[in-house]
């Protein structure tokens, strides 16, 4: 059974009376145990919102509207209160972008660990100071930090170290799924590399399922096995990372890849995508990317494409879907 099965997930954001913004629209997502998935897209595409929705972290004025999220067979989309809280132990966890700001500045790191471990303790667990310290120390070691960090305070640590602490705190609950929401965006560019590497190693060692949310396609393709691209609240492409590298299928993904380049190359051409994403408070007709797409046809402006299988993955594009059918048709 898949670890996570989400069907028809919608998230609506209502900042003022009468304004409804569909941040996530009709998303189906299946994750198997041990997968490392990257969720990529630009500002406003809904990737962070989806990550929050999947871990039930949405706060008003955003809320889930319709859809089912099954975590290991349990429908968590309707859980509240204590049953939901219990799901966080050995269930799902989230590491935030501002993980650094998520630490209480007046408490030591050790206190943070003790707090979490005690809050989610199970029957018969040893909660003595020594045992907690030992467990916390082990967690810190797993994120490449020394156990003496337990006695320090957040402001005494560098940005990268604080983010590692956040990761260790997420690991403390032995989760089966961890969502990393832009974990390195706010970090220095050199530290980013190191932290992503740590996340990669951890995922390989501990085989938890992970979702890495990032706007940086390069980071995601490097670290993950499978990439999901979002645009205007929808999933528009879902491929293994290698497949995406060798030839993306959705015009948006292609255009996005064209915005990256190797500074060492002899010739560097940096692409851009003209136009802007659509206003999500208005009903969308047809493919959301059509206004900016060089391949757009009439059908694209009328009918919203659905995710159809293409190669080892899926793509939501009329043009590509038709091309693949044509290809299959030719001998």
């Amino acid at each position, binding site marked *: 059974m898949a670890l996570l099965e989400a069907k028809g997930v919608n998230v609506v954001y209502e900042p003022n009376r009468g304004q409804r*913004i569909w941040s996530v629209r009709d998303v189906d997502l299946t994750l198997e145990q041990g997968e490392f998935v990257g969720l990529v897209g*630009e500002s*406003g595409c809904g990737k962070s919102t989806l990550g*929050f929705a999947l871990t039930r972290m949405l706060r008003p004025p955003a809320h889930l509207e319709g859809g089912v999220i099954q975590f290991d067979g349990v429908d968590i989309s309707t859980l509240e209160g204590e049953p939901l809280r219990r799901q966080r132990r050995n269930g799902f966890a989230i590491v*935030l972008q501002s993980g650094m700001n998520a630490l209480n500045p007046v408490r030591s790191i050790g206190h943070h660990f003790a707090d979490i471990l005690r809050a989610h303790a199970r029957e018969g667990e040893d909660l003595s100071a020594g045992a907690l310290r030992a467990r916390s120390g082990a967690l810190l070691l797993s994120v490449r930090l020394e156990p003496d960090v337990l006695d320090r305070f957040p402001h005494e640590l560098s940005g990268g170290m604080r983010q590692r602490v956040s990761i260790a705190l997420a690991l403390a609950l032995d989760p089966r799924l961890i969502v990393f929401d832009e974990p390195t965006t706010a970090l220095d560019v050199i530290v980013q590399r190191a932290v992503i590497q740590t996340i990669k190693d951890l995922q390989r060692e501990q085989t938890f399922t992970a979702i890495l949310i990032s*706007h940086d396609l390069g980071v995601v393709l490097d670290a993950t096995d499978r990439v999901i691209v979002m645009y205007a609240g929808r999933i528009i492409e879902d491929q293994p990372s290698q497949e995406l590298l060798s030839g993306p299928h959705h015009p948006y993904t292609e255009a996005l890849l064209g915005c990256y380049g190797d500074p060492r190359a002899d010739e560097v051409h940096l692409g851009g995508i003209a136009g802007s994403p659509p*206003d*999500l408070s208005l009903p969308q007709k047809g493919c959301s990317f059509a206004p900016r797409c060089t391949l757009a046809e009439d059908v694209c402006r009328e009918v919203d494409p659905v995710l159809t299988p293409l190669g080892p993955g899926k793509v939501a594009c009329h043009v590509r879907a038709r091309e693949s059918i044509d290809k299959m048709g030719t001998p």
Partner: protein
Amino acid sequence: MTIVTAGPPPQTPGDLAEIKIGHASSLPVSLLFVGRALRTLWSNRKARIGLVILAVIILIALFAPLLAPYSPTSTDFKPYQTPNSTNWFGTTGNGQDVFSQMLYGARVSLFVGLVAGILATLVAVTIGLVTGYRPGIIDEVLSFVTNLALVIPGLPLMIILAAYLSSRSVWTIVLVVAFTSWATGARVMRSQASTLRSREFITSAVFSGERLFRVVFREILPNMTSLVAASFFSAATAAVMAEASLEFLGLGNPNTVSWGTILYFAQQQNALLTGQWVLVFAPGLAIALLAVSFTLINFGVDALSNPRLREK
């Protein structure tokens, strides 16, 4: 749309709400500004209630001569009357009609509240801006003075000042109240001005060749509008209460008719013993209502500085 945003809503580009902006600096713009401010306040439910209450009190104050059945000071009536058909609120120990007094009394309370509030806010804004925008010796000196003023308890200081000042007029009260309530506002303004000073759009304004005066009054101050308004309404609330307290303690001019003096005489003449509870409740309630109206309006003030909230 910044990449570093986590969590919901996309900014919607090309949002075409119509905003009419006039930026020629002359009278029409100030009226435009006031008009827009009122409309913004009106859109908040709590503020709306506050505005209505305030409007009613202002109207009462303005039209007191027309609304009051009798002169507030004439001692024609039988004293110590409970409410009856001639004197709706009864009469004082001197035979004055309380209802008329209540209507005319609105004038003094409003006057002191608004004027003292404005004065205190003006001082607070000036000191706040000066100290917040230019660190240095002036900042150090003025901050010290502000802290000093904050530490001294307000009401006792007011009582002492009022008791020692020889003239006993409404203006004395106004000045005393303003003098003792500017400090909190100044501290808040300073902190806000200080934060704004390091914002990049202020640096850009300086790079655009703007002079100090314009940077402070056209760039920083407009971004502090809601703070200034909030500060004003708080100061006005405090002023209304302070004025009533001073009058009640007999430190005002006993010849003025205000809600506070009604309470003073009520106390002097043992209104509760003579069963004239209206003499205590009416002014008390009125003072509370005025103060509450300012507080309610304050709820809507936040939207003034946030253009995003204005449009809805």
